[in-house]
């Protein structure tokens, strides 16, 4: 090692800091510097690929862990007290003994942390030592380990291997420079994604020589956005080419369908996007815990009051002494403190003595209880979904009890209420409707589309129409329509029987045993993927099939390719449904590369379209386009599909092939199509418009130049790219529209009914059109026939304000009139995105919230993801209520994070929602049991346990406090300190924890059968844990401690009883009182309860007896030798214990009995239901429901939506009873919209 001056080291460190922090990084290849010392390496400042997720190292574990633990205020408090105990003038116990409780708790925590950290260390080691291929100048690709990868290296990844670092893709074995990756490890999305070789290296096939790489890569600072990456490749001739996320292989992804690929390491180790995304689990504070902290604060005040009383009492006591009595001990110098000073010290001594008033073990116990609760939630078989083999996941560990207090539920529609399995149902082409009557059947899956006969004929006619290749055939709108369906998407084609299978555990196990059996061949087996893929490759070469437009996979399949073997991997199920629909009509999407799309026409002819650009979907434009070059006509064609309202505004040029009166005809087509779209929407279908545009070559040239510039921009790249997209998407020609059905999930209406009966306001927020949404709303019983449905949709703020005021007035009138309590209909609100924005503006939001509060359910349509979270935040903050958001897609992430409880549904749209959620379920119906049963249980259990904990500590500490009045306030404890510690640590700690995990006030069946019981947990009417219950339990604790102290006191007064003999019955009485108090609270006694309760009592007696028998001089100066034994031989002991316990518990017991008899709570009635035998109970629930008018839930019938009842001053919901196929549809809202569209 060469010596370096400290100055140089500092300079080096600063330089490194600067390099890491700068906005742009310039990276060059490591190869020219291979073998040189570290100081000469150009990329030395960037971290290596070794990851370390451990928090501690073996050496620094203790200090670091202690530091972590002291961040908790409670720990600090107790350590402070323990230290205080070491100061001689204020100590209350032997100093060492004071350390025990805090030490035990901190040791337990440290052990848990160490174990977790060790597991992390092991997994880090495993990951860091995974093999990968790094290019070396001397030996080509050598196998090294992941941790050896550095920024600037060239790494080769082969098929099915995991990418070790973020790589800029430079070479792919695929002739088109495509590499497929699966990002399931990152975001859970299982569809394949395409990555392309960075633009400037695309033509470097067949081989790629890393040594010839002489460019510099300029990239942005590492960030955690998985979907954005900006980078420039600077060639030696200063030519700059942009590269984006399209060319980045992310660490943790798996390479699929590609033999091998080579990439340049851009980010390594902790700077990779996947690592930056790993920011641990969510830590939320539950409402109960926030409340609990307030109560801890009250306890603190109580403690200070008690200590003040103690100090004051001590002062008065000292003052009252006429002389120096023999029992007043001077300090070691024989000097007595002034009364004022002594009482000042006494204050602190009292704090030490009474410290357990602040429940030290409460926080630890709550954590334990939550682990237990989560265990039971995740193990609930009713929340297990067979189809996906998944149970409920609890991702946030500390908000289980919030599930029991929800008042507002915000739900996404698509994928949450519905299956998100899209089935192509109807389409309209050039103003003609093709109903596809066969398609509505339930048994059809998304891949099956039965073609409409009329349309099929139409297509056959068009196909054969010209007979030869002429423009008329290619210009038939029907053909164009399906071509657009097949082309205009981002669907990736893969072979159904290709490498990529989702093999899960059992297969793995089989493979494992296989490997074991032939352990010597282990290595060969593992190598199979490479060789297999290589074979495919070599066959390609042999055949010499080099049509660059064809996908390698289809090549390997050869010309005998059958459509059934194709598998479409779509990011959204809508796209897949459209491609499958096109396939049903013979337009088969065969392959897609970044440059080309191969489509087989019904005639069997395969067309290869050159893809010039893809304008991807974004939520602002609400459409996507693909620009292709027609292989036959050589025209530049832009196919666009999108939401009708975003497309209809952009219609322009007439359809080129029409020869009739174009203007009028076009208008008719647009109007007819709009009409059809409205009908689709009413039927609850999702609608899309399909358009086409022919772009002239000159336009394309100028546009593509701009586009290229936009893509290479380092600043505002996204905005510029979007702008170019908008530029091109004008003057579109309408081809037609599609209607896709998304069926409701099973039991959704029942679930929503149950949630509503449970007192929750259900809001559905959807991006769909109002008509679709309202229809689904009725279908899922969000809206009811007899409901008063207010439909708010207005164009400007003024009308919005007046509408709000009027409706509010009317709704108030309904609510306040006492004469029509029974007849008041439930109010529901339907509001659209624009109106919502206005209603949520600062001046109107109060009124909006007031209105929303009075509505039983609210339906928001056409809302953006941001609005979704805005609504949730508004309701949560204005109404101060507990909110729950449930959704399945990336667009629900904001909402899920904004709500108190976020629920993700692991569905068709990837895992983003699940990743952001606190709980993940697989079906909407599971929400019912999760909330009504587990939520209720978790809440009542935890609330009761917390209250009990406070009670327990206050009751016990007060015994000591009362004694102070008889010992001159000198902080004497009449119980041996060890026994005091054991009392809290062992004798009375397990029963409440078990109570928090196991207690079951009402059975799951009754909770589900009578959802009203859930209301007991909701914040505004909490019975379990509020200010009142807390103080009642504190008062009860005071009463009980008074009884427990003064009955023994009066019984032993004027006798020769000694301190610990007096303390023993007190301790025993306290134990019995505290445990029996819990026994009153426990609602159901299982074997576990009996064991734990009796076990605690037994433990107390065994430990105390053993301790009193063994310890003669081991615990000076206190000496409890043989005291417990002598007490147990005394009948007085039992008489005192019995009397005290009975008197202490009598009021609570009596109160419960009277309350239960005179005014039984709903929960008690639920428990009484529980005691009936199941059949009677079911009968009872049924009768009760019938009486309440709930009635059985009707089946979802799409064609018969109910009629709304009230016409509000605003736009009201149109009469939707009309037959869909009829001509006389009344479309007030929509007509207005259309007029608006035309006007603009």
């Amino acid at each position, binding site marked *: 090692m060469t010596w370096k001056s400290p100055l140089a080291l500092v300079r080096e460190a600063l330089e490194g800091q600067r390099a890491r922090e700068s906005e742009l990084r310039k990276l060059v290849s490591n190869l020219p510097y291979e073998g040189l010392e570290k100081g000469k390496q150009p990329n030395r400042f960037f971290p290596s690929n070794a990851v370390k*997720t451990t*928090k501690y190292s073996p050496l620094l574990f203790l200090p670091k862990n202690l530091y972590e633990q002291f961040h908790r205020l409670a720990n600090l408090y107790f350590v402070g007290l323990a230290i205080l105990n070491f100061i001689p003038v204020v100590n209350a116990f032997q100093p060492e003994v004071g350390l025990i409780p805090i030490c035990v708790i901190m040791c337990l925590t440290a052990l848990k942390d160490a174990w*977790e950290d060790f*597991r*992390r260390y092991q*997994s880090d080691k495993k*990951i860091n030592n995974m093999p990968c291929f790094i290019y070396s100048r001397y030996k080509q690709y050598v196998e090294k380990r992941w941790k050896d990868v550095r920024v600037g290296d060239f790494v080769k990844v082969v098929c*099915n291997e995991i990418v070790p670092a973020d790589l800029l893709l430079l070479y792919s074995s695929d002739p088109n420079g495509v590499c497929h990756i699966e990002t399931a490890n990152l975001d859970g999305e299982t569809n394949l994604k395409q990555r392309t070789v960075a633009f400037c290296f695309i033509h470097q096939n067949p081989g790629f020589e890393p040594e010839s790489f002489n460019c510099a890569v300029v990239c942005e600072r590492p960030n955690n956005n998985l979907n954005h990456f900006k980078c420039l490749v600077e060639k030696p001739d200063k030519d700059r080419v942009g590269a984006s996320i399209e060319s980045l292989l992310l660490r943790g992804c*798996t390479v699929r369908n590609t033999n091998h690929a080579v990439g340049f390491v851009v980010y390594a180790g902790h700077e990779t996007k996947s690592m930056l995304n790993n920011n641990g*689990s969510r830590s939320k504070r539950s409402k109960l815990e926030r409340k609990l902290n307030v109560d801890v604060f009250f306890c603190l005040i109580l403690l200070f009051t008690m200590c003040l009383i103690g100090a004051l009492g001590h002062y008065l006591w000292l003052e009252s*002494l006429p002389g120096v009595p*023999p029992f007043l*001990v001077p300090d*070691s*110098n024989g000097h007595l403190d002034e009364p004022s000073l002594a009482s000042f010290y006494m204050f602190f001594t009292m704090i030490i003595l009474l410290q357990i008033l602040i429940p030290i073990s409460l926080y630890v116990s709550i954590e334990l209880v939550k*682990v237990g609760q989560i265990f039971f939630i*995740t193990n609930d*078989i009713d929340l297990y979904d067979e189809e996906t*083999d998944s*149970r409920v996941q*609890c*991702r946030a*560990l500390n908000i289980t009890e919030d599930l029991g207090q929800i008042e507002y539920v915000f739900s996404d529609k698509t994928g949450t209420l519905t299956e998100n399995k899209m089935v192509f149902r109807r389409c309209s082409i050039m103003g003609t409707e093709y109903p596809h009557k066969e398609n509505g059947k339930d048994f059809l899956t998304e*891949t*099956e589309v039965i073609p409409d006969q009329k349309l099929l004929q139409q297509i056959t006619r068009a196909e054969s129409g010209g007979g030869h290749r002429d423009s008329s055939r290619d210009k038939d709108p029907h053909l164009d329509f399906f071509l657009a369906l097949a082309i205009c998407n981002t669907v990736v084609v893969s072979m159904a*029987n290709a490498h990529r*299978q989702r*093999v*899960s*555990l059992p297969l793995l196990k089989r*493979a494992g045993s296989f490997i074991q059996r032939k352990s010597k061949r282990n290595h060969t087996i593992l190598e*199979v993927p490479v060789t297999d893929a290589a074979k495919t490759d070599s066959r390609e070469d042999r055949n010499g099939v080099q049509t660059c437009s064809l996908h390698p996979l289809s090549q390997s399949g050869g010309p005998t390719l059958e459509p*059934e073997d*194709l598998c479409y991997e779509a990011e959204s199920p809508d796209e897949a449904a459209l491609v499958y629909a096109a396939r049903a009509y013979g337009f088969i999407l065969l392959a897609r590369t970044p440059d080309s799309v191969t489509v087989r026409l019904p005639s069997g002819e395969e067309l290869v379209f050159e893809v010039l650009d893809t304008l991807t979907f974004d939520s602002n434009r609400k459409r996507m386009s693909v620009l292709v070059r027609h292989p036959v006509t050589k025209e530049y064609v832009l196919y666009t599909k999108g939401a009708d309202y975003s497309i209809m505004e952009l219609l322009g040029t007439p359809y080129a092939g029409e020869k009739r009166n174009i203007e009028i005809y076009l208008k008719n087509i647009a109007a007819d199509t709009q009409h059809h779209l409205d009908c689709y929407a009413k039927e609850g279908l999702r609608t899309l418009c399909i358009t086409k545009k022919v772009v002239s070559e000159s336009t394309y040239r100028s546009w593509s130049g701009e586009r290229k510039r936009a893509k290479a921009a380092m600043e505002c790249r996204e905005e510029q790219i979007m702008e170019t997209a908008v530029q091109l998407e004008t003057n579109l020609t309408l081809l037609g529209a599609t209607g896709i059905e998304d069926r409701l999930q099973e039991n959704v209406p029942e679930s929503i009914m149950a949630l509503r009966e449970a007192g929750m306001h259900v809001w559905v927020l959807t991006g769909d059109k109002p008509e679709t949404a309202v229809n689904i709303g009725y279908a899922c019983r969000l809206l009811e026939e007899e409901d008063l449905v207010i439909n708010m949709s207005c164009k400007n703020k003024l009308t919005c304000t007046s509408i709000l005021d009027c409706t509010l007035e009317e709704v108030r009138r309904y609510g306040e009139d006492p004469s029509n309590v029974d007849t008041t209909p439930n109010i529901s609100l339907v509001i659209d995105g624009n109106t919502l924005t206005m209603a949520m503006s600062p001046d109107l939001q109060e009124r909006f919230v007031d209105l929303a509060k009075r509505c039983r359910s609210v339906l928001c349509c056409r809302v953006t993801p941001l609005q979704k979270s805005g609504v949730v935040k508004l309701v949560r903050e204005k109404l101060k209520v507990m909110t729950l958001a449930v959704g399945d897609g990336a667009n629900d992430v904001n909402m899920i994070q904004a709500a108190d409880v976020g629920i993700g549904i692991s569905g068709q749209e990837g895992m983003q929602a699940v990743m952001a959620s606190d709980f993940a379920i697989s079906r909407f119906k599971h929400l019912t049991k999760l909330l009504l049963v587990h939520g209720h249980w978790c809440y009542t259990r935890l609330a009761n346990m917390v209250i009990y904990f406070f009670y327990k500590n206050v009751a016990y500490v007060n015994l000591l406090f009362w004694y102070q009045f008889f*010992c*001159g306030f000198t902080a*004497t404890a009449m119980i041996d300190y060890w026994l005091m510690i054991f009392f809290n640590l062992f004798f009375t700690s397990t029963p409440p924890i078990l109570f928090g995990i196991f207690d*079951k006030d009402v059975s799951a069946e009754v909770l589900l059968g009578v959802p009203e019981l859930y209301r007991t947990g909701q914040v505004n009417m909490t019975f379990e844990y509020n200010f009142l219950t807390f103080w009642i339990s504190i008062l009860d604790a005071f009463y009980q401690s008074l009884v427990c102290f003064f009955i023994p006191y*009066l*019984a032993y007064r*004027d*006798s*020769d009883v000694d*301190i610990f*003999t*007096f303390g023993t019955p007190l301790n025993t009485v306290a134990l019995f009182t505290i445990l029996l108090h819990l026994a009153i609270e426990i*609602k*159901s*006694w*299982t074997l576990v309860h009996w064991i734990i309760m009796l076990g605690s009592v037994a433990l107390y007696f065994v430990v105390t007896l053993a301790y009193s028998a063994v310890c003669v001089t081991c615990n*000076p*100066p206190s000496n409890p*030798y*043989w005291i417990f034994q002598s007490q147990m031989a005394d009948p007085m002991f039992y*008489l*005192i214990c019995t009397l005290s316990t009975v008197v202490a518990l*009598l009021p609570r017991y009596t109160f419960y*009995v009277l309350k239960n*008899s005179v005014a039984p709570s709903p929960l008690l009635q639920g428990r*009484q239901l529980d005691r009936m035998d199941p059949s009677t109970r079911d009968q009872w629930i049924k009768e009760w429901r019938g009486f309440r008018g709930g009635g059985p839930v009707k089946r979802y019938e799409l064609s018969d939506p109910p009629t709304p009842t009230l016409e509000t001053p605003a736009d009201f919901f149109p009469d939707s009873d009309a037959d869909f196929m009829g001509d006389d549809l009344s479309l007030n809202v929509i007509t207005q919209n259309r007029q608006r569209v035309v006007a603009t």
Partner: protein
Amino acid sequence: MFHSFGKHFLYTGLEGGSCHSQYGGWSNVWFLLSQCGVCPAPNGQSRKGGQVKATATYRILAMVKQEQKESSDRPDNTAFTQQRLPAWQPILSAGIVIPGFVLIGLAFIGVGVGLFITSQNIQVLELDYTGADTANPCYECGRQSTKNCVCTMEFSLSTLFKGPVFFYYGLTNYFQNQRRYGVSKDDTQLFGDLDAIKTPTSDCAPFDYDGNNRSIVPCGALANSIFNDTFKLYVKTNNSGKKEVPLDGKGIAWWTDYNVKHRNPDVTPLKDAFKDTVKPINWPKPVYELDTTDEYNNGFINQDFLVWMRRAALPDFRKLYRRITADEYHDGLPAGNYSLEITYNYPVLTFNGRKKVVLSNVSWMGGKNDFLGIAYLVVGSLCIVMSIVMLIVYAKFKFPEED
């Protein structure tokens, strides 16, 4: 059951830490899975006609599912995990608890009566000899601070004071439970440990060493302040003479104190063990001369010393001084006139205390205490009253179940 608990607990638990579970757990699984992924897909089903029945993906999924049947993620369907353990669910309501209240009430009244009668049968005689008022014979002694001032109190018994009679001395307002005072002793020293005799614990300070750095034995404030009044009881004979009633000082301390907790050092003669030590300041003689007549009542196992060292729980307490066990007083103290000769030493005016002598006989429940009996009676009656109230409530509201 516990296997699956471990698994799920682990993953949920660890997510809090970092990427561990996601990365450590899953990436490995995926890695292994991808290895298996190359096995050619089971693609046995044939197509039917032109209609697409199911894509290969679905077929594979179905196959995988089939194989998964036995080891899926399905939770165990046990009574424990599904929270369906058989349970007893008591509901507290009037109808059920009335019998309970009646039973408790009757039992308590029974016990109360027993206790009350027992307590009533106990005779107690208290003689305050503080000398606070001038009428008291010990007034003079209380005023002076002369040592061994003797005063005599007269009392008479009209009936037989049933035996065995216990002779207590009592102090009021004396805080033996003062914390500093209570810990000011050395248990090891009293256990006979020679090292602790040489170097007492610091708990004893400032009563651990004298001015010449010699250790004080027994150390501490507790021992130093030992009660040092002595009593003699005389019965007046007919011929105006008096006869001393023998007081038995054996066995007045706890058996365990005498035999286990306190021991004399194993040195003979006992005095040698206390070489280079001094007696406590207030003591007239060193510990090894407490009772020179009886070596089993000397040193640390002196019964009076043991009684004093067992700290009283409350500021008003009594401690056993002697028992009257002599044969002639086996039935108790006969009716007659008695005089009590008190050697007055202990100062109580510094803490407004009072001194008294208590003669009492004891029962199975210890000394006289009416409280417990009365309390049992009151609570028992309360329970009966409550049960009547409950009955009314029951009659009025019936069972909610019957609705």
